[in-house]
């Protein structure tokens, strides 16, 4: 009896599948471009700002811009979004990923079906995207952060880095440039003792900061090249009463850090305009879809209100479009920025 019913079920399933398959339609109408912005995770404020910038560009260009992504920072979690975006007929995917290699197979699958891939902020494997939109020159970002730390610690003492994910391409690139800067003679009394990973999670970053303070009681400073990390570290230092004793710098949002700047937890840190980054990335995507940009070096284009940009080679990475030099925040100018 069981076997017979199982066979009947089997027939039903196959029949249903066959019906649905033959009803399959193909093709979409292309009246304007559909661009999918895929951040590392949707809960992180800087990515929300990127998304808003991209949507603004979309309105100016007449393109449909969708912003969606996983809620946890993970390359694997981005894969279903890439596949679905392809099936939903998106013409371009603009992605920032915490895991350059994990998303590569999925992106290549999408590219094979005609979707253009542009990466921004967190780069993917080079052969998986057409152009990378960089917030700033990586070597500058790395060097500046070390310079800011040196100035705050009087160029001596143990320092640690509080990073995001260990697989993050941009984090690792910046750390490489930081180490390069540290080799200069004026930093000879400063020693990098640990790289901790906060995974862009506020709680983990706070716990990692506490662990750094516990395991290195003579720590002079923490460099946190992540907006989630620097904010969590600042709060942790404040809670432990260590502001001013342990120096802090890195990349942070002015709104997040304003209070800590005013209480002396940090005197210099930097970032870039996140909204502009998203805006630029959307313009790059549009121009790639228009055929105006192919990834060849030297091509230039206009990105709305931001001006003209050129495709370049930057720190050995290519092809890259760079937004501009980092913005530097100090107690004197912090009140001018509101993002």
């Amino acid at each position, binding site marked *: 009896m069981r076997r017979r019913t199982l066979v009947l*079920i089997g027939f039903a399933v196959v029949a249903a599948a066959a019906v649905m398959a033959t009803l399959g*339609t193909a093709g979409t109408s292309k009246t304007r471009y559909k661009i999918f912005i895929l951040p590392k995770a949707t809960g992180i404020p800087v990515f929300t700002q990127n998304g808003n910038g991209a949507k603004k560009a979309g309105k100016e260009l007449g393109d449909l811009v969708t912003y*969606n992504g996983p809620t946890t920072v993970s390359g*694997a979690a981005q894969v279903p979004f890439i596949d*679905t975006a392809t099936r939903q007929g998106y013409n371009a995917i603009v992605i920032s990923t915490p895991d350059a290699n994990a998303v590569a*197979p999925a992106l290549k699958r999408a590219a094979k079906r005609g979707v253009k891939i542009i990466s921004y902020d967190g780069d993917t494997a080079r052969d998986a995207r057409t152009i990378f939109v960089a917030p700033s020159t990586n070597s500058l970002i790395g060097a500046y952060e070390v310079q800011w730390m040196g100035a705050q610690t009087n160029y001596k003492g143990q320092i640690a880095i509080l990073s995001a994910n*260990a697989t993050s391409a941009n984090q690792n690139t910046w750390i490489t440039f930081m180490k390069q800067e540290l080799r200069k003679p004026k930093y000879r009394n400063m020693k990098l003792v640990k790289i901790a990973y906060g995974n862009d999670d506020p709680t983990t970053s706070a716990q990692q900061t506490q662990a750094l303070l516990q395991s290195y009681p003579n720590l002079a400073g923490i460099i946190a090249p992540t907006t989630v990390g620097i904010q969590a570290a600042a709060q942790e230092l404040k809670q432990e009463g260590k502001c001013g004793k342990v120096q802090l710098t890195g990349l942070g949002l002015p709104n997040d850090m304003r209070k800590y700047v005013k209480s002396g937890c940090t005197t210099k840190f930097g970032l870039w305009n996140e909204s502009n980054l998203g805006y630029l990335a959307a313009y790059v995507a549009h121009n790639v879809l228009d055929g105006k940009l192919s990834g060849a070096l030297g091509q230039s284009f206009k990105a709305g209100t931001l001006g003209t940009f050129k495709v370049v080679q930057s720190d050995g990475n290519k092809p890259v479009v760079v937004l501009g030099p980092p913005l530097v925040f100090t107690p004197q100018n912090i009140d001018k920025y509101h993002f």
Partner: protein
Amino acid sequence: MRGVAGRVLVRWETLLVVAIVAVGIWSVTLSPFFLQRANLLDLVTPYVFIGLMAFGLTFVVITGEIDISVASTLAVSIVSFAQIFAAGANVWVAALIGLAIAGGLGLVNGLLVGVLDLPSLAVTLGTMAAYSGLAFVILSGEGVATFPEGFTKLGGGYLANDELPVALLVMLFFALVLGIVLHGTRFGRYLFAIGSNREAARLSGIPVTRVRVTVFVISGLMAGVAGLVYVGYFGSARADAAQLSLLDIVTAVVLGGVGIFGGTGSMPGVLLALILVAEVRNGMQLANFSGQLQNIVIGVILLAAIVAGNVIAGIRAGGGRTRPRRSRKEVTSNAPAETQVLVDSNS
């Protein structure tokens, strides 16, 4: 209702098929892309690794136990595989070793539960954490992400003009094989017997301990197979792989009609349930539901599946009166009633 038609219509699997068609109709209203052949064939691909683990877990649950360490087992398996491969071994050799490790981890569970007679929930809760940490110890942070094309085809490859996913074939293959083992062999019948009444099974000569150890090994091995597919599809082997997949795995098993206290279940049911879960997730993805909202939906489906099962069992038992489910722990409890001491706490 009488006859084949009656038996077909009231079966759980039939309800699943109906649900699959219904969700299909809903998905079409969400997005015309749903009915594209490429989409339909690719529906299950991101969830094949979940399905494979669900198949393995089915064996365990039918015997009246639970194994929540499967996702961590997958993680250990793939990072071991990745490290061995990165050290220079042939990718297939490394894969086999990864599988063997997965089976070994399952064996640990099996011995603790089957031989030492420890409660499977507590044991697999512990091994879940232990294996997860072990995965990070073996391969912390970075992850490995470059594997030869031939290998990644297993999880991420497509045949027949790039439309038929290999992963789908892998899943169907295992569903078939495991289904035959479960429903067509003596070993399979042992599982149902043990799940219904362990003592009676033991008394009737079934090698209960050996069977219980074996099902955990099977569960571990399937996690290993799932890991290979996972690496192919997601393109990377990381220690935090599959961490959040337990919800979907358990949902596929429960929704597939497998009785959570053991003794009942069918492999075709789990396969259909997995397709349904994949379809629902795919539909939600097309509708741009956030990942967390999708989880709410799956969680609700899980609860509804159990309630529905209770209701149906109640109807079968006596027309509408819901019969209280017998507690699994009363039947299979290791502790005879006489020694259950009612203890005052701080006296």
